[in-house]
């Protein structure tokens, strides 16, 4: 029990923040990326309702890379988009219609973004999704 406590004690503080899509709907791509990275840099795991456009996702990756160079102790992000809410599970819709899933917006989707220093891996397969944290 003691050793378990010690291990858990190594996790540094973080918050899970939910952002409804309405908060980014009126923003342009620059502002969206800035908002997301601002939240993540504050040691928060972001759960965003909906998803970004494919171009915005690559932009997020590109800007993250630029940030690694400029922000001390920032190592990047873990990113996952859970798309689809059909009967066939998380990826059912994604499998049936990939094109729909990449169209952006998609309020049935959830985008998870976390700082890599906190989120070790977002492990997923068609049946489940796991958020593994760094200890």
């Amino acid at each position, binding site marked *: 029990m003691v050793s378990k406590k010690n291990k858990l004690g190594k996790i540094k503080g973080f918050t899970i923040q939910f952002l409804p899509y309405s908060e980014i709907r009126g923003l342009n791509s620059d502002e969206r990326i800035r908002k997301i990275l601002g939240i993540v840099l504050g040691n928060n795991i972001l759960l965003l309702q909906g998803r970004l456009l494919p171009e915005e996702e690559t932009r997020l990756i590109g800007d993250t890379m630029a940030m690694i160079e400029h922000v001390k102790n920032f190592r990047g992000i873990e*990113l996952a988009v859970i798309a689809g809410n059909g009967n066939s599970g998380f990826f059912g819709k994604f*499998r049936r219609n990939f094109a729909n899933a990449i169209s952006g917006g998609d309020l049935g989707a959830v985008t998870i973004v976390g700082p890599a220093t906190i989120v070790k891996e977002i492990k997923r397969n068609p049946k489940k999704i796991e958020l593994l944290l760094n200890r």
Partner: protein
Amino acid sequence: MAIKIVKNFFKRVFLGIFKGKKEIKLGFYGPPNAGKTSLVNRICKDFTGEEIGSVSKIPHETRKVQFKEKVEIEFKGKKMTFKMIDTPGIATKIDYEDFLKFKIKKSEAKKRAKEATQGVVESIKWLDDMNLVVVVLDATENPYNQVNITIIGNLVARKIPVLIVANKIDMKKSDIKKIESAFPEYDVVGISAKYGKNLEEFYESIFRLSKKL
């Protein structure tokens, strides 16, 4: 007036001839350590006698976009000319400490990490320049990775044809079916770039997709 007509006629004729011999910009994208450079090296070695870049077990060995122009690939009596573009692996995180596991000095690891971040940015910038893209995935890894989905999503949005390659099929842990089921709308070709396994099917798919351009 007559000179102008003759001039236009020759212009049309020559343009028509060279249009068919246009160099196709063939990009190789994917996560780090999937075997992009190994595959490009094999193709370039087979058809030009020269490799394009170095390969390593350490991730992010390719940190700059490297290309080889006018690579003429011959397959079943047909020839096509490509500009082979090998890109650095795309990742969402890069930690210099990960490189220390490979017994690299701290200063060298930090330099590698810095170059790797710049490489990712460069890879993304080159997306717009491609005519056709081969997404190279490691068949021993879980394909449900957001980087893979983001790359393919971007190519679809840009209307760039995609071929998915499941590399490292020589390894016991490899699972092509998992990749096929993750991307059911795309052609998936299983290969081993290291041993040159199943490249015939790869060339066949490349030629088929190139004809549609």
